[in-house]
């Protein structure tokens, strides 16, 4: 039985994470992760067939920082807005310090032409850890159904 307080905390966590990305507060995004973390955006086809390749696979907070430097300074791209709609979480397992949970997401992309597109849909598969009463990400895998990416994928999901 999961108490409501924990459920509420996890739910807030998912919504805050989405807000940090949608509002492009990249430093805040990085701070959702522990130092030794895993962050992957992987197609469902690769995931289901046990292919290790991801569209993006970062395995330390340092790599997350390098990615943010990439999207803000080095990767040439046209800016786009993202809006994440994240479902209520499913909490799968709770231990003293860890929570395993999932949520479904849909990301809409709006480019300069002003047209919103369904950009990426899938689910988060997460392992969260409690540090000083706060939840942080040890591992987040974004497993997306629509494996045909609409040209490029610049920002995190």
């Amino acid at each position, binding site marked *: 039985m999961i108490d409501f307080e924990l459920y509420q905390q996890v739910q807030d966590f998912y919504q805050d994470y989405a807000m940090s990305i949608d509002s492009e507060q990249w430093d805040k995004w990085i701070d959702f992760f522990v130092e030794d973390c895993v962050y992957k955006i992987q197609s469902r*086809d690769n995931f289901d067939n046990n292919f290790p390749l991801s569209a993006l696979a970062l395995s*330390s907070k340092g790599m997350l920082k390098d990615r943010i430097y990439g999207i803000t300074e080095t990767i*040439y791209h046209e800016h786009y807005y993202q809006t994440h709609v994240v479902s209520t979480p499913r909490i799968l397992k709770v231990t003293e310090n860890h929570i395993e949970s999932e949520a479904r997401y849909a990301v809409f992309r709006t480019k300069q032409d002003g047209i919103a597109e369904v950009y990426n849909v899938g689910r988060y598969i997460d392992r969260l850890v409690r540090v000083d009463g706060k939840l942080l990400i040890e591992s987040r895998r974004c497993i997306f159904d629509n494996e045909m990416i*609409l*040209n490029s994928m610049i920002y995190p999901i």
Partner: protein
Amino acid sequence: MKIDTKLENRKLSEIPFWAYTDESVYKKELERLFYNDHWCYVGLEVEVQNPGDFKNTLVGERSVVMVRDDEGSINVVENVCAHKGMKFCREKHGKIKDFICPYHQWSYDLKGNLEGVPLLRGMKKDGKVQGGMPKTFKKSAHGLTKLKVAIRGGAVFASFNHDIESLEDYIGEELLGYYDRVFSGRPLKVLGYNKQRIPGNWKLMLENIKDPYHPGLLHTWFVTFGLWRSDNESELKMDKHFRHAAMITTRGAGGKDDQTTNVSSFKGNMELNDKRFLDVKYEDWWNGPTAVMLTLFPSVIIQQQVNSLSTRHIQPNGKGSFDFVWTHFGFEDDSEEMTERRLIQANLFGPAGFVSADDGEAIQFVQEGCQQKPDDSVAIIKMGGIEIDKHTDHMVSETLIRGMYDYWSKKMEG
């Protein structure tokens, strides 16, 4: 506007925008390039390891299935039932005993021969035969369309034209060594796929990988870390028809020097927080170059960028769009550590790549520009002159693009 696909020799350095935007040119390209006289990439042998394994893929816009039969041969057949034309195979990959079209259950063996037609001789009822195919109907005349198949070193190519030259002659002696360097027969291991739909003409992607002028300018990572820049030791080579090409380079020191002074993408102070992105380990089979980008016209790019290997399959779907399918691979006998390294370096490539994401964006915006004024405008391809240099020992040249259009205009003429 009259479209004349013949480019004057002196004009190879001026590519008309309509080459990217005209519907009739595109239709002709499918017929003459993808569906005739050219070996098109369909996959890796290891993707269909065992009898019955299949992979659904494309030659141009045409859906085909690569399958291994019971004798162990690889066949490629068109995914269109000979009865009503149904595109019957709907899975991306899987395992089957034979092909069955669900609509009327016509069945084919794994070579594409028609085996079963339900109610071929009709149905007996009250001593009478109802229906059935005419006596003249021959199963042998109604197989699936079979493509000719060639395999070399683990990669599989197919052609709708059965009279095509050998794959080896097709690649050409000038480039075969670069092909064999990656596909030496050492067993491969697929690491996975990335797919992106790029709203640009398919030729722009080949041009991108025949263009050593841009990487040291557009791609900050390449310039800053010395992976690909104009002052690296480099060679540009082509086959005798100029249709395929290799860009060959050896990684330099990176950092600041004369070459970077005017390059705005160079970031002198950039340091990686996590150095594993570029934890390059020399592999013996490289025989020198740290990167070889091979374009095999019209359908595939074979990438070796330090420890990252992939095929990039071009699947056009209209004059202004193509799907770009990346198959990343390593070798079966790679250590776990090497597999991990290849996977980490894969972050540079693909739709989200630190380097390659730039290219998809650039191609899209070039297409938009060309569509805006297709009638009388041209792209200026004059870096390194207006002629075709068969062998160039530096990167400051667009000769490979001129070469490709020389070949293209010959095939498209008339």
